[in-house]
């Protein structure tokens, strides 16, 4: 083994306290990045996942004119011929006033968003039906599913209650219909229909006087990485229509933009944490240099050049960086594994969407390794500045 590396290793390993301290500094720096990533990127991905699963699919088709007048049956069939597509379903949205009556007396009146779904297609393209924790989905045309928050705001609506819904149709006329509550929807994290009500799409079309029209087509893919391909196929297939096709990243951009910049800031804080661990390495290595002053003097006196001394202490930085990066990455992966396997969530909120971002994992490990080397530069430089005679006087 190269003598400088051997010396660097021995000097470091014979000072176990310093070695452990320096390695811990690197480890903690990496762990902070991993924990940040698991929590905040996991939360972001969970929101994207839920928006995709409940609302927008992997590709969302809308129309510049607000409503799609092409047959939803035709569009869904077109999509389902593409191998990447698992299912597609039409949706229609509006807002409504709700009169909730109990035992014949008006109990509560409120205005809420309303979503019309094709229940049989919807359960294939979306998992929002799984959020109906009490009762069942809107399989009957006079049934309604209330979001848990709406049910609470209405004074504690329960399955089996009835309520009256008023919608203004396309001609400005009030359309009123009575529904029976068949289910209450509640999603962890509230990305489902917790603040809306859901009815059968045909019923909503009737109420809105928009027969055969849809607000959007939600497309679920079996391979989400093909979203852009599917989007482009679709736009190429319908060049003369005014369709808008968006991937989940595009359709949810407005909701996610703020969160994205929040993550960037958290990451930046993490990297600052990593930099502070570099300062810890500088301090520990300065102690190592001070502790080896006499040895440095001896080495210089028997012919070691300043460069040799520099290289020995940079090797120490590399050893600290390599061990720290290894231990830190292992600890980070352990935490990620734990978070993924336990479907980690906070206060029963939405479970984090934990993923192994190997590019980021490697980048963090390499960055911390490089930082450890950079941190060792100053102590190494100081070591080279020691004069042999003075250094050897040190006891």
């Amino acid at each position, binding site marked *: 083994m190269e003598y400088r590396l*051997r010396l660097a290793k021995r000097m470091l390993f014979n000072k176990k306290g310093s070695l452990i301290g320096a390695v811990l500094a690197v480890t903690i720096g990496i762990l902070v990045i991993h924990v940040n990533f698991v929590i905040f990127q996991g939360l972001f991905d969970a929101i994207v996942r839920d928006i995709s699963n409940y609302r927008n699919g992997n590709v969302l088709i809308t129309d510049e004119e607000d409503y799609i007048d092409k047959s939803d049956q035709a569009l869904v069939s077109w999509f389902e011929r593409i191998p990447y597509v698992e299912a597609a379903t039409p949706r229609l949205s509006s807002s409504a006033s709700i009169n909730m009556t109990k035992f014949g007396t008006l109990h509560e009146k409120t205005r809420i968003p309303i979503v019309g779904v094709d229940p049989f297609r919807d359960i294939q393209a979306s998992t929002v039906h799984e959020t109906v924790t009490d009762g069942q989905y809107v399989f009957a045309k006079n049934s309604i599913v209330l979001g848990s928050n709406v049910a609470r705001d209405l004074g504690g609506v329960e399955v089996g209650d009835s309520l009256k819904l008023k919608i203004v149709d396309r001609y400005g006329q009030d359309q009123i219909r009575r529904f029976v509550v068949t289910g209450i929807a509640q999603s962890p994290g509230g990305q489902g229909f917790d603040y809306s009500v859901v009815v059968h799409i045909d019923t909503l079309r009737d109420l809105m006087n928009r027969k055969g029209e849809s607000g959007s087509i939600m497309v679920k893919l079996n391979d989400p990485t093909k979203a852009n391909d599917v989007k482009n196929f679709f736009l190429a297939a319908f060049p003369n229509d005014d369709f808008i096709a968006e991937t989940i990243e595009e359709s949810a951009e407005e909701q996610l933009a703020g969160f994205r910049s929040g993550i960037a800031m958290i990451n930046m804080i993490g990297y600052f944490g990593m930099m502070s661990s570099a300062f810890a390495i500088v301090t520990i290595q300065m102690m190592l240099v001070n502790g080896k002053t006499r*040895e440095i003097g*001896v080495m210089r*006196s*028997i*012919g*070691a050049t300043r460069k040799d001394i520099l290289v020995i202490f940079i090797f120490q930085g590399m050893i600290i960086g390599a061990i720290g990066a290894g231990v830190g990455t292992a600890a980070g992966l352990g935490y990620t594994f734990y978070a993924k396997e336990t479907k980690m969530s906070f206060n029963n909120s939405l479970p984090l969407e934990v993923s192994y971002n190997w590019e980021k994992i490697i980048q963090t490990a390499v960055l911390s390794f490089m930082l450890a080397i950079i941190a060792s530069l100053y102590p190494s430089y100081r070591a080279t500045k020691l004069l042999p005679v003075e250094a050897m006087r040190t006891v």
Partner: protein
Amino acid sequence: MVKALDDVSFSIEKGEFVLIVGSSGSGKSTLLNMIGLLDRPTNGKVFIDGTDTSNLSDNQISTFRNKKLGFIFQFSNLLTDLTVLENVLLPREIAGTTESAEKNARELLKAVGLENQINKRANKISGGQAQRAAIARGLINNPSIVLADEPTGNLDSVTSKIIVDLMKSMAKELNQTFIIVTHDQQHFGEADRVITIKDGKASEGNQPSELEVLV
């Protein structure tokens, strides 16, 4: 400004066993450090093997120290992180001439009576053994000059005699120049030359009696 050495001028021939003596603080270690290129004179020059060392760069000085000079210090100054053998090998590894280095190191360690201690950590051997290892380290690169600064200063009288005898026999056997700084000339007995330093000035005599007069 205090002058550690003033108007010191002498030359030493190859193979000479030279003692530099003087009381504590007289400047003898400073003189040795200048000969060993560990310190630079503010005025004057040190020539070694015909080379004016005052013109050498820091890297050249390091190479010069490594190849031409061998050092033996008062406190052996072995690196405690290395074994005895690794300590002896170190100057060769610094020089990058590792071919047959281990064989040479083992021979030297055998010559100084440490063949059974070679794999021990340097801090696990006695002071006398460490000093013998330091002598082996000082000789591994076959230097032109071996410089020893109070090599027996930290040893008991029995061990000191062993070390002195060893240095003398090595000097004779290898025909190497030894320059030894000591405050106790009696330990070393006869030397080819004795240079006395007093108040930074050097004077020279061949016999201890003359030195005594000078001092």
